[in-house]
């Protein structure tokens, strides 16, 4: 079972990386959260039923873990705003794209835990039905919340209507 689990997680590890990148500002926090999500996935794996897709289940566990994770007090992510996201963007991308990535992460970092979950799934092009299934809220509320988030992001990124 462990091998099956490791194989499936290795195939879908992008989901965990994305969740970590949206919830953590520093590399150290991302590593911690990655491990925490991995452990929660392993703990929950026996309860995984094939009623939903593996990726849907993985999103749910990863996002719930990220929302309920507790950063150690000694680290203050707000004091290192998005530098690590910017530092990664050093090869193969133009400066404009780097700036846009930085701006996007900076705006997302200002959102609340649940808003980050919905934003990530929206950016991943997940249908509202699946977002509702993952987050446990109804499709209508997902739509309402997404509209509010869009307005918030526009404001945060100084995007004009």
């Amino acid at each position, binding site marked *: 079972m462990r091998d099956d689990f490791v194989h499936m997680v290795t195939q879908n590890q992008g989901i965990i990386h994305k969740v970590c990148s949206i919830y953590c500002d520093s590399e150290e926090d991302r590593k911690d959260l990655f491990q925490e999500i991995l452990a929660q996935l392993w703990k*929950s794996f026996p309860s995984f039923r094939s009623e939903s897709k593996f990726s849907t289940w993985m999103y749910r566990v990863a996002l719930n873990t990220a929302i309920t994770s507790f950063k150690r007090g000694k680290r203050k992510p707000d004091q290192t705003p998005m530098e690590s996201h910017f530092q990664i963007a050093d090869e193969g991308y133009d400066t404009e794209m780097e700036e*846009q990535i930085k701006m996007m992460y900076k705006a997302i970092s200002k959102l609340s835990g649940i808003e980050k979950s919905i934003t990530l799934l929206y950016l991943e092009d997940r249908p509202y039905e699946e977002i509702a299934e993952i987050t446990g809220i109804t499709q209508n509320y997902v739509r309402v919340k997404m509209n509010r988030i869009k307005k918030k992001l526009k404001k945060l990124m100084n995007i004009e209507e």
Partner: protein
Amino acid sequence: MKLEDLKSVWKAAASRDANKKSLDSEEIKSMLSKRSMSIIEKINVNVKIGFVIILAIILLMIADNAVMAPVYQSWIDNYVNQPIEIPGWIITLSYVQIALAIVGCIYFWVCYNRVNRKNISSENIKQSLKSFIDVFVNLKKLTKVFLLFFAVVLAISMTTGLYIGLQASSNMANVTTSSYLMIFGIGAALFSLIVFGVFKVLQLIFRRLFGKYLSKLYAYQEELKDIE
């Protein structure tokens, strides 16, 4: 940049990160063995610490009844001229108080394990959070019931002690009304101090063990309520 461009920016960042951060299965396996703790797991550890503290308090209460009560009786016998006996029903009342604490602990443990058996991360977070937080709200209520019972038992014990003490006093005739009032005042102040002290200690233990973790869970619950 337009809001519609966000998705393409996100995809660019994601594909870049995927290339840089991709781990092989061996790395994933090794990461499974080392890990940090989530809020729920920290609460799990602190629930166990809380139980050790409560167990120590219960043992102290049992020791007070079983060991100290005879000691108090011998002090009374040695230093007071009149024969005074601690009423048996006061000891019984103390044991009822201990029994209440034990029943409360068992009730909390059963409720907590029922909720904790489910893995919060793989369940519907809104419902899981609610049932998880509800267990702690009930724990607060249980603590208040215990404190109320403790205050009642203490008040009854102190009043009885005062009454028996005064009745047995050989100088009863010399006791003036102002002396009665002073004794009553000191008793009431002592009673308030003890009840307030116990309340503050229990509050402090609760805050230190669960406060910051529960407040974060409360914040998420509020946010989810907000969405509705």
